[in-house]
């Protein structure tokens, strides 16, 4: 457990906590970006360069911007006066705490049987490209179709019918 790991963990957890706790929705989206950045740096710390940079491109570059656009389009940046948490927030917090307790117990009780390879694996972009075009080509094609359908679906769902019928 290195110092870098603790630093990146603190950054990621602080970003995640701020994303769910802050009152202003825009601030939440910006805190979410910090959490995504911390996760991308954790990926780089795990020697997964491609996944780390894909995380930065897809999440910080696309998803965070999409969230900000959605906030602007829905006037979600106005903080409601009667609180930002649901009436049943205590039950939700209890469920989340129970899930964390269960997961933490499962991890801590299986520390001895967890794999621990010390050799640093190499995953160059060429290797990943070969794997995507070879063994995983069917999954790649399905994801391509899924992304196209999701894009068309998102446009159709969000399209303004009244403006379109004029």
């Amino acid at each position, binding site marked *: *457990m290195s110092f870098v*790991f603790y630093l990146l*963990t603190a950054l990621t*957890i602080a970003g*995640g906590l701020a*994303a*769910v706790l802050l009152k202003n929705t825009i601030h*939440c*989206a910006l805190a*979410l970006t910090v959490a995504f950045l911390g*996760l991308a740096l*954790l*990926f780089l710390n*795990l*020697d*997964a360069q*491609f*996944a780390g940079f894909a*995380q930065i491109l897809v*999440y910080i570059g696309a*998803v965070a911007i*999409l*969230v900000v*656009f*959605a*906030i602007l*389009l*829905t006037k979600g940046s106005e903080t409601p006066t009667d609180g*930002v*948490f*649901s009436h*049943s*927030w205590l039950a939700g*917090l209890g*469920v*989340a705490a129970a*899930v*964390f307790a269960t*997961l*933490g117990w499962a*991890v*801590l009780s299986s*520390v001895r049987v*967890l*794999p*621990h390879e010390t050799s640093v*694996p190499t995953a160059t972009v060429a290797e*990943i490209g070969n*794997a*995507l075009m070879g063994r*995983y080509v069917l*999954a790649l094609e399905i*994801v391509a179709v*899924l*992304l196209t359908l*999701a*894009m068309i*679906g998102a*446009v159709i769902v*969000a399209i303004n019918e009244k403006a379109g019928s004029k």
Partner: protein
Amino acid sequence: MTPLAGYLLVAALLFSIGLAGALTRRNAILVLIGIELMLNAANLNLIAFWRYGPHPEALTGMMFAIFSIAVAAAEAAVGLGLVIQIHRHAKTTDLDQMNRMKG
């Protein structure tokens, strides 16, 4: 504590934070933000197991994480489109006020 256990604990904590956000916030966009955090925590698990597990040269965990990122991007686009349409229809994104499915 091994490094893998540390990463798994971080992922569990981030997943729980995302779950708490998705379950307690009233704004629909904040619920989607919580879901994104949960998906990212799962990705961290996949990458950590790829790094410390046997046979990393097979790239299994890495591929799973990359496909998971792609599917999560599609999910975010459709989810936010739905939120925009609901806001246009109901004039609110407050989930406590969305208590009927009739249009």
